[in-house]
Every structure is written in C-alpha cells, then in structure tokens.
C-alpha cells in the first residue's frame, strides 16, 4: 500500500513541479512585487510598502497630500468590466443562434460549419484585429460603401471608440461562445424539442422553456470563456482603441513599460485575477445549482 502511494507521488511529480514553478511561482513573484517599492528605472527596490495597492484605487495629491479616488484607474476598470460584459452578451446574441443553426444541420455538414467557425480562431490575433480595423476605419469598407450609396456624407468614426474594441473582441472571441453552446446543443435530445412543439409550444416558448434551460451550462461556460480573456485583452484595445481607450491589459503593460512602476503593475494584475476568480466562483455556484441532486 505504502509503496503504491509512493509510486503515485512519483508519477505525479512532473505535473506538480510544473504547477509549482510555472504557475504558482510567477504568481508568487507578482504578489511579492506588489508589496515592494518601485525602482527608479523600472524594477523594484526591496522595501516593503503597500503604496502600490493604495495606488490601484486612490492617489495622493502631489502638493497638498489629500487623498482622492484614482479616477483614471476606476474608469479603466469600469470600461474593462463593462466592455467585457457587453462582449459576452453580444457574443451570446450572435453565438446562440449560430450554434443552434449548426446543431440542427444534417450530421454530415455540421463539421464543416464548425470548421468555418474555428478557422479564424487559428489565425493570428494581430492579423484578425487589423482585418477588423480595415473594415471599420474611416476609409474602410463600411464607410466607403455607405458614402458610395449616399447614405452618409462624411465617414462615421468607428475606429478608436469603445464600440470598436467591443466589435473586435466579439469577433475574436466568438468561437469561444459558439463551441461550448454547440457542444451542449449537440447533446440535447431533439425529441424533447419535438415533445414541446407537440404540447402546443410555439417557437419562442420552446426556445425559452426547453432549449435554453437545457443548454444553459454551455451558455454559462461560453460567457465565462469570452468574459475572462476580454477582461485581460491587450492587443484588441491597443489596435482598435488607438491608445485612447485603455483597458486593464493596457494599463498593466503601461506600468511595466513607460510607467516604470512594476509594483503597481503587479497589484493591478492581481486585481484582474481577483475579478476573474469571482466570475469563476459565480460559474461554479450556478453550475452546482443546475446539477441534479441525485444522479439517475
């Protein structure tokens, strides 16, 4: 027995090593850095301080030392959460019908449709983001067409707005919404849908009362999968927000780069992680509520 347990630990050790050094290690470094003083030219000084954490949400006036809320940070937090939520909702609104459409195709053509959804996902993120830029910029496809058909006279400013960032993120992360919803829809027993129609359910009511509750785990998983990377997105807000509309990812990068304030960057990173953890805990709770009390 003891030998067997020993062997198990031995077999587990590579995974444990990776977990310890590759995941917890860096995280620990970030945590430690967030409690240190910023070095003059980047880096850290090994002096304990909670300044970085203080600076996450507040700032001290340079002259009279009064404390006020760090408006810039709060608005970036707010924008990040808001845009990520909106991205998740928009991805759901587009992704749900898409997944439903694919799941109701003939078995043979379903894989092809899924492939079409996944191919962009394999394309480089930068390229995809620049493609969106090409479409929405002032001389881009949309504006050119609208002007050509005389619908507008001057181009509409879409690029470098919050909407542009959201559009880009929806496009980039849509497969992450479609995949889990499709997975639960494919498992959905369509005779249940027939039974609901048979029992006088109209299209919308069948969708709301039968289809949606049964694929809800997929919807929640998809929403988390879209929300989490959106929250930490860096490339998309950088390219489509044009450096004016910062998101958390950009703010963090700024602290490690130009800002030369590594501890603040570290504290912001951990804050981001905390928001993600809260979202995941919410997911676990909802998922547990959905589970039947006794398996069949």
């Amino acid at each position, binding site marked *: 027995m003891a030998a067997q347990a020993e062997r198990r630990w031995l077999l587990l050790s590579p995974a444990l090593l990776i977990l310890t050094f590759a995941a917890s290690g860096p995280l620990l470094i970030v945590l430690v850095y967030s409690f240190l003083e910023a070095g003059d030219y980047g880096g850290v000084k090994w002096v304990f301080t909670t300044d970085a954490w203080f600076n996450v949400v507040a700032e001290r006036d340079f002259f009279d030392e009064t404390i006020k809320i760090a408006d810039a940070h709060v608005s970036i937090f707010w924008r990040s959460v808001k845009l990520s939520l909106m991205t998740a909702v928009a991805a759901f609104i587009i992704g749900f019908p898409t997944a439903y459409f694919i799941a109701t195709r003939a078995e043979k053509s379903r894989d092809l449709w899924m492939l079409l959804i996944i191919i962009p996902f394999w394309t480089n993120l930068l390229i995809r983001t620049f493609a969106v830029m090409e479409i929405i910029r002032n001389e881009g496809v949309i504006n050119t067409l609208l002007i050509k058909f005389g619908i507008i006279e001057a181009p509409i400013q879409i690029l470098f707005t919050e909407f542009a960032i959201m559009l880009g993120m929806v496009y980039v992360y849509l497969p992450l919404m479609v995949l889990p919803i499709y997975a639960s829809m494919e498992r959905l*027993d369509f005779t249940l849908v*027939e039974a609901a129609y048979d029992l006088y359910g109209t299209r919308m009511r069948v969708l709301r009362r039968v289809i949606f509750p*049964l694929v809800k785990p997929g919807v929640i998983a998809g929403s988390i999968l879209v929300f989490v990377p959106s929250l930490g997105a860096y490339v998309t807000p950088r390219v489509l927000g044009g450096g004016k509309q910062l998101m958390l990812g950009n703010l963090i990068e700024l602290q490690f780069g130009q800002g030369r304030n590594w501890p603040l960057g570290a504290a912001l990173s951990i804050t981001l992680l905390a928001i993600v953890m809260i979202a995941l805990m919410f997911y676990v709770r909802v998922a547990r509520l959905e589970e039947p009390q006794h398996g069949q």
Partner: protein
Amino acid sequence: MIEISNITQTFGKGRDAFTALRDVSLTIRENEFFTLLGPSGCGKTTLLRSIAGFVYPTAGTIKLQGEDLLTLPPYSRPVNTVFQSYALFPHMTVAQNIAFGLEMLNQPGAQVKSSVNEMLALVQMTDMADRKTSQISGGQQQRVALARALAPKPKVLLLDEPLSALDFKLRKEMQIELKRLQTETGITFVFVTHDQEEALTMSDRIAVMNEGRILQIDAPRAIYDHPAERFVADFIGETNFLEVDVLSVEADDATIKLTSGATTTARRADTNSATGQATIAVRPEHATLSDDASALLRGTLEDVIYSGTDTHYHIRLQDNCRFVVRKQNHPGTMEAHTVGHQAGVFFDRGVAQILRD
C-alpha cells in the same frame, strides 16, 4: 374521423431518396383504439410523425374531423404524442412536465393545477409529483409521459411503442391500464407496436404494415383468422402455407384441391381471385391429427414438441412440405403419437384462407 388519404413520404433526394410510406390510406374512427403493426423500419413511426406534424408528407392529405391537418404546424394540432423514449423534460418535475402543455395553451393557473392533480391521480403518481423525472422508474416515467400527453385533452393520442422499454410483467399491467384509460377518456388512440400479441390484445382494429404499405386493416380476430396476405399470416402467429389448385369460386368461398388430391372449401380474402394456382394459410391450432380416412393430408410425424400449454406436431407431408399441428394439452392424457409413424391432417371446411398474391 382521421382520414389519411394517399400519403407518400420520401426522404432525401436523387440516389439517396428513400420512400418510407407508399400511398397509405386509412380511416381511424372516433374513440377507436387503432394499432399500426409491422416489423422494424416499415414506416409506423413515420406515419405517426406525419399525423403529429414532425414530417410533412411528400403527397397525400390528412384530415381530422374534416379539418386539413397538414396546413397546421405541430403546435396547433389537437393531437398529442407519447414518445417511445418518453421525452420527459429533465429539468422539470413530474408535475411541471404534466402542466407544460396546459401552460402552453395559456390555461389559467388554478385550472392547470386542478388538471395536473386529476392527471396525477389518473396515472397513480400523486405521491411523486415533485420528483425530478430522473428520480423515478421506467414504468413511472411511462405513466408521466402518458399523463402529460393526456392532460391537454387532445382529440387524438399518438403512442409510439410506449411499452417497449418495460419488462414483461409491467408491460402486461400497462396494457390493461392503457386500455382502461382509453375507455375512460374516450380519446382516440393511435398505437404503434411491432409486438403482434400486444396488438391483438389491445386493439379495436389493426393495420398491418410492411415496407411502407398497409397490407390489411381489420379487427384482431379477423386479422388472425383471415389474413389476406402471406406477409400478414406469417407476421401474426404461426401459419402453415400450402400450394393448392382453386377449382371453382363462389361469393366468399372457393373449392380447392390440395396436393394430396383431397378437396375442401377455403375462404377467399380477395373476391377478385380467380381459379388456378394459389396459396392457402392454415393455423396450426385449426388443424387436427387424424388417422382415419377423413385426413386431407398425409405424411410422417417428424417431431413432437411439448411446450406446457400445448404440443406441436411437425409433419413432413408427401410433397416434402412441413405442416405443424398444435393441440392443447389436457392433464392426464398420454402422448398417443410416435415420431416416425404415419400421420394424417384434417381441418374443417372454411378454415383455410386463400391468400392474395
């Protein structure tokens, strides 16, 4: 009441096209227990689904009390289905499942509640109203499926092999219960099964199907005693087939000559049938062993198989065909026939049935 006329159902196109129903016509009467019986893949479910509205026939019409059903979507048809897999909603309780159809019909809450209670009592599931459907047994699920389909008081109830997942004993119980429910509610039942015994026990009338066609529609007794086609005779019960020569025909009967040279009277399934070569069907229990001169056929007794309620005698006839005679057993009687000996077969006039080719 349900008039199905010339329904054809083709799935797919071109080379992959498959015709599941071929020119099916039948009329189902009010308050009838009507059964569709046939082997797997003969199109029973497809016919049921076209009444429910899940498939749209390639040709033909379906009318319910004179109203064209095909113009209505499934959710507007006053027809409910008990699915083979039950298709109970797993995220709802027993009571919520039964209430679903009533809620979709926008019935007021109090009425839904009282109907649900009534249905729960009808299928004896009142104690389990608040259980999830995964927490009840197969037989109970079956009853919930039934209650859910009956609750909106449909004009027609479609049942697709609802008993096939149950074990033998439960199945027998549910057969009686289904029959009782049908009589009590006065709803027309269209019942699908591939179990001939189930069909014979429960039905007012049976339609025997094969390869997308309806071969015969009749009361159980008529189907059993007077099968019109070889397939029907073979599919329902056991049968002996004999090649005969039809000498002359009257209204319902014909005089036939057996291969042994003996003549007797047989019934005609099809009044168009002419004289000449034909096949007849004789049920094993309609024939008797006979040693005297009255025997119509003669041969050698090859096998005697005892099976509890009765004994089967397998006789190799002179023309090398095999003929089975079934005799009910009585206590205390000794087996009088020995394997290898000569045996004669006799059946009454009118027992043999001439089959349609």
